[in-house]
């Protein structure tokens, strides 16, 4: 197969800083004292805990789940006792807390019995179901549950399977390390994906700055082809070395490079018959389908100039970052007692930083990752990299930047071919309709525009702020629409009820009238009685009520009384 590579617009060359974390071999991280497992580690519906505080859990035991199809259950990564189910700092941009299951690790690492299954006999639907139950999500960073994506892909039909081993962000080497060490697992996982999706060709994209990974993948691919143990050989599969250029690893960009196709705005890759999956997810699928083991650990890179011994570790999910940084030799500059003060709670008067606080923790890469407010946050399914940067690497000072000089460099590097400058102007003046007109939601937030901006405008932040504002408005509109529907429904219901009651009353009255008419005919005596009664009533009506307070009236008052009396009489006559 001869692959003709295409280009995407723009992109930038970055110092890749990948060598640092590749100096040590891949290691297995030791168990920490405590694992903190956020109930939601994926995109979709949150999980509900299935264990109680005080329960002892075993490795591989299901501890949280949800009935929603767009969700992914959580399994205990080791044995221990659930010590709390409470809000805890989680790795999220906001630096806020969310509900977590905390497990006090007992160190025995006892596991449940993983029933053996025979994957060779499984149908695609069974495999997808299995992947769902074992908590597999996309490990490239987005953490979208893999099973709904697979079943959708299966429904729509896939012609090209793309395996993403690009890893274009600086510092991150976890996929590189995985490809070098577990290429076989990845290749077997690709085999299972091919069984589920039946693509006509499979392309494994790897940037050419990872020659060892490319070699290992090719080797594994060849040995797989020769091996007899696998009934089904890989069809039309190739490792493609692509030029190093950020952000080649973005799904849209990788698809463009490998196939020349663009995903239409607002659509997803499988809408055009392409399915993209990260190498890490492939290895996790292999583990799930061959060993029946859920996702309990992943490879995490710890790197940056703020940590002594950068490297890659196989880490149990829920491991606090602090533990991992300890394994990486600790911080270069002492303890991070007040982490990244320069980002959070900074003193803006001339930026007086604390002398000893010089570090900035980032989860993910420097281009698209996010600052962490604390090293207490745990590793989750989507954590690929922990970056510890010394202060001098931080370019942006919040709120202060030069004016845009319209140089257009941002548009030149934008892989989505947007006009970042126009987006900036409109975001800044909060003209959200305009921002959407300029296709803000096609922005992949890769950060190229911010990185090249001579005025150092934090463009991506402007876009993120606009996006979240627009989303909030959409949500509010959604909610008010629901309220309107419920209100109108209630009004209708009340009206109906009223009508029904009236109808009932009318029927009752009619029935009564009929009854009385029948009675009237039946008995004249009744008439006589009625006449008597009428007479009494008439008499009562004529009865003069003794007026009070009529002594000593003035002429005026007497006149008023006379007028009133006359009115009453007239009324009575009229009535009669």
């Amino acid at each position: 197969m001869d692959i003709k590579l295409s280009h995407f617009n723009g992109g930038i060359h970055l110092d890749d800083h990948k060598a640092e974390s590749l100096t040590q071999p891949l290691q297995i991280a030791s168990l920490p004292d405590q694992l903190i497992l956020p109930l939601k580690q994926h995109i979709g519906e949150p999980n509900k805990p299935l264990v109680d505080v005080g329960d002892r859990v075993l490795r591989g035991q299901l501890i949280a789940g949800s009935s929603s199809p767009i969700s992914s259950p959580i399994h205990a990564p080791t044995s221990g006792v659930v010590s709390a189910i409470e809000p805890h700092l989680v790795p999220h941009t906001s630096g806020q807390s969310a509900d977590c299951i905390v497990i006090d690790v007992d160190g025995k690492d006892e596991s449940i019995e993983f029933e053996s299954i025979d994957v060779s006999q499984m149908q695609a639907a069974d495999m997808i179901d299995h992947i769902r139950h074992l908590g597999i999500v996309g490990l490239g960073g987005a953490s979208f549950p893999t099973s709904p994506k697979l079943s959708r892909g299966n429904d729509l039909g896939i012609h090209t399977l793309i395996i993403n081993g690009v890893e274009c962000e600086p510092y991150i080497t976890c996929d590189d390390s995985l490809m070098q060490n577990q290429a076989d697992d990845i290749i077997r996982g690709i085999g299972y994906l091919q069984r589920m999706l039946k693509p006509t060709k499979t392309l494994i994209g790897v940037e050419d700055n990872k020659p060892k990974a490319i070699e290992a993948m090719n080797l594994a691919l060849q040995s797989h082809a020769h091996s007899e143990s696998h009934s089904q050989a890989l069809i039309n599969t190739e490792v493609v070395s692509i030029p190093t250029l950020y952000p080649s690893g973005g799904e849209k960009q990788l698809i463009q490079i490998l196939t020349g196709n663009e995903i239409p705005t607002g659509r997803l890759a499988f809408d055009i018959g392409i399915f993209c999956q990260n190498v890490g997810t492939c290895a996790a699928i292999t583990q799930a389908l061959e060993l029946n083991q859920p996702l309990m650990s992943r490879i995490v890179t710890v790197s940056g100039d703020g940590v002594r011994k950068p490297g890659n570790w196989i880490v149990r999910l829920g491991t606090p970052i602090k533990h991992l940084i300890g394994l990486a030799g600790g911080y270069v500059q002492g303890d991070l007692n007040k982490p990244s003060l320069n980002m959070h709670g900074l003193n803006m008067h001339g930026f007086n930083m604390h002398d000893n606080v010089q570090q900035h923790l980032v989860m993910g890469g420097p281009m698209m990752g996010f600052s962490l407010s604390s090293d207490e946050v745990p590793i989750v399914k989507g954590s690929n990299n922990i970056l510890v940067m010394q202060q001098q690497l931080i370019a942006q000072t919040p709120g202060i930047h030069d004016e845009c000089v319209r140089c257009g460099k941002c548009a030149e590097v934008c892989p989505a071919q947007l006009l970042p400058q126009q987006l900036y102007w409109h975001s800044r003046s909060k003209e959200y309709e305009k921002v959407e007109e300029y296709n803000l939601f096609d922005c992949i937030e890769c950060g190229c525009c911010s990185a090249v901006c001579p005025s150092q405008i934090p463009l991506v932040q402007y876009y993120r702020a606009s996006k979240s504002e627009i989303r909030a408005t959409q949500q509010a509109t959604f909610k008010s629409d629901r309220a309107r529907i419920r209100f109108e429904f209630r009004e209708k219901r009340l009206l109906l009820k009223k009508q029904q009651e009236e109808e009932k009353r009318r029927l009752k009255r009619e029935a009564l009238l009929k009854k009385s008419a029948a009675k009237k005919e039946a008995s004249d005596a009744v008439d006589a009685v009625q006449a008597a009664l009428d007479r009494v009533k008439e008499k009562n009506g004529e009865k003069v009520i003794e007026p009070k307070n009529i002594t000593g009236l003035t002429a005026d008052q007497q006149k008023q009384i006379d007028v009133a009396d006359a009115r009453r009489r007239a009324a009575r006559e009229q009535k009669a």
Partner: protein
Amino acid sequence: MTSVIVSSPYVNPSNSLRRLMINVIIGLIPGTLAYVWFFGPGILVNISISILFALGFEAFILRLRKKRIKPHLTDYSAVVTAWLFALCLPTHSPWWLIVVGIGFAMIAGKHLYGGLGLNPFNPAMVGYVVVLISFPREMTTWHLPISISGEAYGLVDSLKFAFAIGDSSWDAFTAATPLDHVKTALRQDVPISEIYQAPLFGKLGGIGWEWISAGWLIGGLWLLITKTIRWHIPAALLGSLGSIALAFYLVDTETATSPLFHWLSGGVMLGAFFIATDPVTAATTNHGRIYYGILIGLLVYLIRSWGGYPDGVAFAVLLANMCVPLIDYYTQPKVYGAK
């Protein structure tokens, strides 16, 4: 704890405004040196006065607008504007002319619109056009190149001229620029070959001017190499001016000057690489830049051939500045994934 959450990317900036402006200043040096070589150090006096007052006006306005002064002065954008403005003036302009022009450029051309990044018109050109229209006599009193006049002025003489100290009657040494000369002569139906006999003309353009233009070209190449500017505007500008000049030149070499003459005289080279490429006032999309450059090239030829002024770069740039929003609007690139 008030929390300021800063968005990624967390990378060192690869670029800065100051860097861009310094690159432009470096780019101006070869042409300026050529200028000094042919016309004496008078231009340096122009530039110095201009920069001094530009910084003064900038600081004054920033103070009025309650903005931070130092970071704005040290982005050197005012220096670039002042330098470009000074280069447009006749060599020995009086000091007040420079002050009026640069003052108008900085105050009306730049800050009244909101300062750097927000001005729709190139401030240097705004200042130049204002003094050109207001003071036609001073603005057309150009000196002859030293090689022709034989009068090599020193720095002291230049300062005397600038501040009108002592005997400042220098009409004897002044003449029209080559462009002016061509225009006047062509109006009197003098054929080009005859016009070129005048001592004012060198091999390709005016004596001295051709080499100064070459200096701007070298500076422009430096800007291209350092990616301070992109190729689109200069290429489109020189291309369109060259094409139209060539077309008329081919029809009749006696009534139209050659494309090379157009390129190498007046402010074309300076305009193509330094003025039209001012990012703030130029078109920003790549396609737009090409249309913008073409428009300026055509306007320059139009004004030179049939307009009231011998050179038209400043007017052409300002007119094109006006069209920029329109150009940008209609040359938006196709967004990824759009149909």
